[in-house]
């Protein structure tokens, strides 16, 4: 597989063409993140359970390159699958996940994303060899982190 094919795995192309979790509602508390270099934009909101202690979903809207859009879609899918499996995240668990994601993406290809933990989002491992694109993949995750920090 060429570097380019590792970067743009089919699952990433599919998510960028048909993104999951798109759609914000009026009154959502959102975090808006921009990559001024290329104009990628993500506005993201967290969905919480009735107790307000666990994240049950992620909604977002945005525009930009396939990596930034696919990454937001994959994060949304991961949150949904986790909740469907009865394992919605606490803020601490979610924060730890974001840290693990960032560490892998900044590893220049030395730390792959664990498929058990990240599911389809593990396909974003290929981004870590493309330093200029790490920021694209991080955008949605940084928005989620921003919202978690505001709550903390």
């Amino acid at each position: 597989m060429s570097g380019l094919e590792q970067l743009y795995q089919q699952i990433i192309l599919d998510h960028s063409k048909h993104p999951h979790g798109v759609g914000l509602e009026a009154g959502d508390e959102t975090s808006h993140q921009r990559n001024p270099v290329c104009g990628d934009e993500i506005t993201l909101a967290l969905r919480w359970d009735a107790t307000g202690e666990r994240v049950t979903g992620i909604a977002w809207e945005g525009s930009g390159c396939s990596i930034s859009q696919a990454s937001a879609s994959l994060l949304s899918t991961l949150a949904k699958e986790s909740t469907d499996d009865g394992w919605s995240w606490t803020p601490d668990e979610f924060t730890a996940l974001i840290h693990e994601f960032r560490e892998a993406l900044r590893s220049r290809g030395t730390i792959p994303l664990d498929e058990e933990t990240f599911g389809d989002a593990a396909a974003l491992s290929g981004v870590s060899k493309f330093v200029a694109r790490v920021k694209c993949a991080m955008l949605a995750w940084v928005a989620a982190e921003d919202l978690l920090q505001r709550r903390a």
Partner: protein
Amino acid sequence: MTDVLPAAPSTAAPLSAGEIDAVRQRFPILSREVNGHPLTYLDTAATAQKPDVVIEAESAFYRESNAAVHRGAHTLAGEATELYEDARLTVAAFLGVDEHEIVFTSHATEALNLVAYALGTASIGRGAGAAAAEFALGPGDEIVVTELEHHANLIPWQELAARTGATLRFIPVHDHGGLDLDAAASIISERTRVLAITHVSNVTGAVTPLDVLVPLARAAGALVVLDACQSAPHLPLRPRELDVDIAVFSGHNLYGPPGNGVLYGRAALLDALPPFLYGGSMITTVTMEKAEYLPSPQRFEPGTPRIAQAIGLAAAIRFVQEVRMERIAATEHVLGERLLAGLSTVPDVRVLGAGSPEPRVALASIVVDGVHAHDAGQVLDEVGIAARVGHHCAQPLHRRFGVTASLRLSAGLYTTEAELDRAVEAVASIRPFFGLSEGEQS
């Protein structure tokens, strides 16, 4: 699409394939590979590659003559000062102006900020009396730019307008990408005090019709400030013949080192403008209360300047002079035609400003339908082609074209036709790579 290019000057022949090859031998970086492919460098508009003479001139200065300039009396200080001032002479000769009309700055951005800030300083009554007061701006005065400007020739004027109460106006572009000259004729009026325009757009590559705009500004009595960053490396640049008051460019675009910019200003204008940055090397007498300033250019060059960079730029200028700017322009004219003709054969690719009637340099910013510029650029990088992706510091123009980003291919004097053909071929592979068939919307 090919007849919008400037006619090659009849006196200058394009470089032959052999001559281009000889030029390429002088750029060490061009022999490297990227991702297993020979480097195809098509990002010259962002920064040009450096010939061996530039690399050596900078290095030789540090190895042999390094010292602070315009101070100290030892041998090295004298040599360094001489080299630095020789660089100024070289730049002045290149532009056909006097040496004291050349100010070295950090880059074109600083040069434009210098002018805008100095005008702002004059506007609050500082500066050399009546001569400076002539430039004072206030409510009712207008500063005119164009919708094509690089942020560096827009934001300093936004700030100057905000500081002085003057109004910033802009000449819009047509849908086809050319400037609306009818609008320009009404926007430039007796209220216009400054016309700040680019010589060549860094997005469309179009050459601004200065023959139309400058006379309008002259009739209005406005100062004309020219951003020549994208013209200086590609066309013979003669500020006096263009009848502009100020012209700026960055050395790194002209095959020189980064960290060095050039500001040409008409002598009488520079002598009247107040300084921008204050400190050492720009004064005559300093007391605890006030200071008196040296004449231009020293008044605008406080602090220890970018000495090796100026010397490197002079080496770059001698290099292009050896090739001759007229021949570089003629060569790049042919390249530009080939690039546009090639891109016009690729389906679902739009060249920004392609319909503009103005002549162009060998530069094209493209939008590949259904593929973000960042993704498109990645496909080119995979085969060793360096192209710029993003808004190229021209967000308003991209917004005008209805896009947030584009992919820019820009040539230099080392670019070959074969490289442009490779780039066109790679551009044609972008949509298929992302699984888009001809005409299909993503």
